[in-house]
């Protein structure tokens, strides 16, 4: 009981810290700190954010890997990641369809079927392994792992909704998942831009005027996002929805069958009462 409470505390707290961290660049420009307004136009926001995201990520990872202790789960996760990660080659090699990336489909479906912690590891490790094999290790990697992990972690939230529309095993279930994946496709892009946003914003004096609101920062970001990323991310949204509708049902069936096969436990004979 206490362990479950601790798990929920870790999930909720890290989510809150993550949200504040991603919004921090916006309202830091209105926090008129006397110290930071001095001569040093140091920009410590990226450093602080990286440290905080790193701490949250470490806590979440320890929380999630507690479930993946058995050989079965480790092997399953390893192989699923090895199927999902090379799909990034498509994204890197064929840079045609904008921000479309096929990796989110399996992250959402495995998270939905196998549970949130499994989904978290699936998301984070898919991004890590694909970065290793495509030489894509960069400052964006922690953000990618954190966000993709959250996609998998939040996927079970679709379950009550599916139950509500009585959609288990029908196209209604797929429709719910498609909406979920599509929405995350967009949110992922919004969050991914934020790793360099503190650099694009520059120091606070640059646009601090009397009466500046923190919504002004959001307005700048929205303008930037509309101009540079929206079209790109819309492709990801459309791609996620399309993939879910085409591959969703058969994949869910396969994953459910294997989940039953993977989640057995050995019991000593006398305990089983035979």
């Amino acid at each position, binding site marked *: 009981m206490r*362990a479950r409470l601790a*798990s929920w*505390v*870790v999930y909720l*707290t*890290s989510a809150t*810290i993550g949200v*504040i961290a991603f919004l*921090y660049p916006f309202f830091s420009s209105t926090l008129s700190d006397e110290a930071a307004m001095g001569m*040093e*136009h*140091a920009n410590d926001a*990226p450093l602080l954010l990286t*440290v905080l995201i790193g*701490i949250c990520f*470490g*806590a979440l990872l*320890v929380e999630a*890997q*507690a479930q*993946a*202790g058995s*050989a079965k*789960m*480790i*092997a*399953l*996760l*390893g*192989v*699923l*990641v*090895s*199927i999902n990660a*090379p799909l990034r080659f498509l994204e*890197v090699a064929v840079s045609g369809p904008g921000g479309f990336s096929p990796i989110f489909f399996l992250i959402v479906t495995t998270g939905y079927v196998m549970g949130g912690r499994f989904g978290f590891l699936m998301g984070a*490790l898919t991004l*890590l*392994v694909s970065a*290793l*094999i*495509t*030489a*894509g*290790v960069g*400052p964006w990697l922690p953000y990618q792992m954190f966000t993709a992990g959250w996609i998998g972690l939040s996927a079970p939230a679709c379950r009550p909704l599916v139950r509500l529309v009585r959609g288990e095993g029908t196209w209604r279930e797929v429709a719910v998942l498609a909406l979920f994946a599509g929405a995350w496709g967009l949110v992922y892009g919004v969050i991914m831009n934020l790793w*360099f946003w503190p*650099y694009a914003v*520059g120091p606070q*004096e*640059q*646009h601090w005027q009397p009466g500046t609101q923190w919504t002004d920062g959001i307005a700048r970001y929205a*303008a930037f996002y509309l101009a*540079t990323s929206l079209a790109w991310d819309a492709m990801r949204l459309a791609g996620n929805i*399309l993939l879910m509708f*085409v*591959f969703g049902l058969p*994949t869910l069936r*396969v994953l459910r069958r294997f989940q039953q096969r*993977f989640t057995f436990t050995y019991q000593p004979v006398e305990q089983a009462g035979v």
Partner: protein
Amino acid sequence: MIHPLAWLIWLAAELAVLSATRNPLYLASAIACTAIVLLRLRGRVVDAPTVPLSPLRFGLVVLPLAALFNALTVHMGRTVLLRLPTPLPLLGGPITLEALTFGALNGLALTGIYAAFIVLNYAVAVRALVGLIPRAFFPVAVVTSIALTFVPVTLRHWRQIRNAQAIRGHRIRGLHDWLPLFLPLLIGGLEHAFQLAEAMTARGFAGAAETVPMRRARTVIAAGLLTLLAGWVLWLAWQQRAIGIPLMALGGGMVVASLWWLGRQVPRTTYRPTHWYPRDTVIALASGTAAAAFLVAWPGWDRSSIFFYPYPALASPGFSGWIALALGGLLVPALLIPPTRYLSLFQSAWANRAILKRDASVQEGQAVTGSPSGIATVAMYPSEAAYPSTPTGEPR
């Protein structure tokens, strides 16, 4: 090989310098150092990974974009280039040379950061990168290495399925036609995972049950996160820096200490450990000097040239020879990378000799004349070292 940890220290120093200054002279020097290191590495790494986007191209895209965006949204500075009509939300107002410059400098710093990470991708083998995963995340490291090992297997499996379906007359006309390719890949992979799990269990791999102290460590982590959040909220919402920052440090410390303690519980042995040579110490010291020159306010050290700021009116940036000299510390890895061509020639000759020997002993009686197979193996030999980075290569 230079130690991965030395590369990480170099990278940290590079990032510190690039985020500490906006002086174009220093930024350009740091980027020049990175470029030289990168060029040296490129000659050396035989099996260089294909980088998705070259730093030059990255810079060509990001630099104008950042300059334009900053100029359009920040209306400060005295040198007005043109005025947009003010009714335009956000964009309306004077477009200044200063804002344009500052945006370009931000883009320059971003380009430098990108280039520094490209160096890391070149310099450190994938195996060494996996080895850097902290001990507390032992299951994660196991999953990562399983996944890296299975990537070539998956790709081979994919080709087999495609060929098998092609023989049956399968052609890809639309998205739906990918289903007969994807499903066998998924099912086959899952079956494979099952066999792998049994093989691991048979060889004695078992996830240890979580002990009570471990569960306690997780509770401490949760408490640490709560403390961290409380401190941050105090700082941001109520401006209580004096209480908030120590609370944040305490919470962060609790999490990090628990992670460290959890890592201590996992015994770890290293196969062929990487040695730390004196040249690694030199790299670490030189990089540290460069970072310290930019971050620490040494007494009697004129740092004013670091804080270049184009507003309110553009002025030429200052320059200090001493700081530039310290910045040169970032160049040290380029000097210490072993002389490339000779080394790789020597290595391949050595490998060739070993392979010829092996071929001769294995295929006794068969003449090894010039050994075309030997040459082919030599060409592929280095890829064996960085095996997971070339998933297209078939495992031999």
